[in-house]
């Protein structure tokens, strides 16, 4: 069992959460001048790192908030949790 520290509810089993995915992807603004390449990158392309990964989870069976998690994809160790737009990359101990 992975345990995630929800900023609102505290430490909970990951079973209470829904996995949303890579948190580093930002949706291009509709009104902006995003190119087809920008959309392609947002929709389809992933870093898919073996190591620390910033990801969005939703506390679906708790407060229902979206949270950000920095988790190692090789060891499943949770390195940090935070608010959805918090950049946690500095907490990975060097790796991105």
């Amino acid at each position, binding site marked *: 069992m992975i345990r995630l520290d929800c900023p609102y509810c505290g430490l909970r089993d990951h079973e209470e959460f829904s996995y949303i995915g890579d948190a580093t992807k930002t949706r291009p603004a509709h009104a902006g001048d995003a190119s087809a390449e920008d959309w392609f990158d947002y929709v389809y392309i992933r*870093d898919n*790192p073996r190591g620390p*990964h910033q990801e969005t989870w939703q506390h679906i069976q708790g407060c229902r908030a979206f949270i950000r998690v920095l988790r190692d994809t090789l060891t499943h160790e949770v390195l940090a949790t935070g608010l959805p737009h918090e950049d946690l990359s500095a907490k990975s101990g060097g790796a991105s």
Partner: protein
Amino acid sequence: MAEYSAFSLLRHALTGHKDWRRAWRDPEPKKSYDVIIVGAGGHGMASAFYLAKNHGIRNIAVLEKGYLGGGNTGRNTTIVRSNYMLEENAHFYEKSLQLWEQLSDELNFNVMFSQRAVTNLAHSDSQMDAFARRGNTMRLNGIDAELLDRKQVQREMPYLDFSDNARFPIYGGLKQPRGGTARHDAVAWGLARGADRLGVDIIQNCEVTGFKREGNRITAVETSRGDIGCGKIGFAVAGSTGHLASKLGMKLPIESHVLQAFVSEPLKPLIDTVVTFGAGHFYVSQSDKGGLVFGGDIDMYNSYAQRGNTPMIEHVVSAGLAMIPSLSRLRILRHWGGVMDMSMDGSPIIGKSPIDNLYLNCGWCYGGFKATPGSGWVFAHTIANDAPHELNAGLNLERFERGYMVDERGAGPYPNRH
């Protein structure tokens, strides 16, 4: 060379099985090769085998960071089928199934391909409609399919839940009689012996850690056993594709996820086919040793760990019990995980890459074992000719940029939903 027969078994029994010959060599890497394949799973081995056999290229190495077949090839639930609907998938997987049908002969190695049929269950009228459509499409493509009604399913699989209080009543099923299972290790071993005999060097304990580049070409791979030069290079590393591509600064429409598989304690013959649940994710067959081999969903979060988590065990087992309640007192003997290369549309990528002499074979999701011979066949063609075979032309990497998804399930660009 090692040949297996009742006679040779008997002969070796007399000498205490001490002088069996190696089935394939264990060579030191040469300075360079015409073609390097990274990854000695089924796909890498089949690619090398067909490169040598069909295209006459003999100066080939397959580099493997661990041991032959130790990746997903040796970790999967071995279901083989070709019940696809979309044009790009249907003909490719059917070719692969046809290759399976002759593989034991071709390799003179029993891969234990058992065409015991694969049946997907339907639990609603709309699911029956969808299966009728899929079955018709398959038959129009020359692929075998039979739509079964509830009575027919009950006759073939009386152990399913046909009671009045079944949570998901069975309406019928779609059966592919030519589908079945194969012996995963035997596939890796048979292909290895076949490729080795054609001169292919299989180099185990040799991890590719980086690349030497000149212009838009890879001139050599850096490995744990030194640098090795290459004319052309193919990746067949399944769940490690993202990690390996990152060494080239290449990003792909792929995420790595962990999928678990399970084996129960052995029991007398109960399930003589492959059957899949239609109301949850569960698929099961029975091995020759008697254990039920089954699986379900991936764990859902990105993972490069070859081990899964406990909540998914409960999830898979509860789906299984909804389908076959009589399994409730069975014990699980073993479970393990493999790292899946989940693509953004659920279909594989086999073809050229943005780098001139690099070819990609990845994105297999839950279902690459069945593709093993077909994947090798078309990947070898692609590498030898620097152009795809007609069977993998539609499974190219550019389709994502063009918005031309091959999304069999219609699940959208969410890799963990395929």
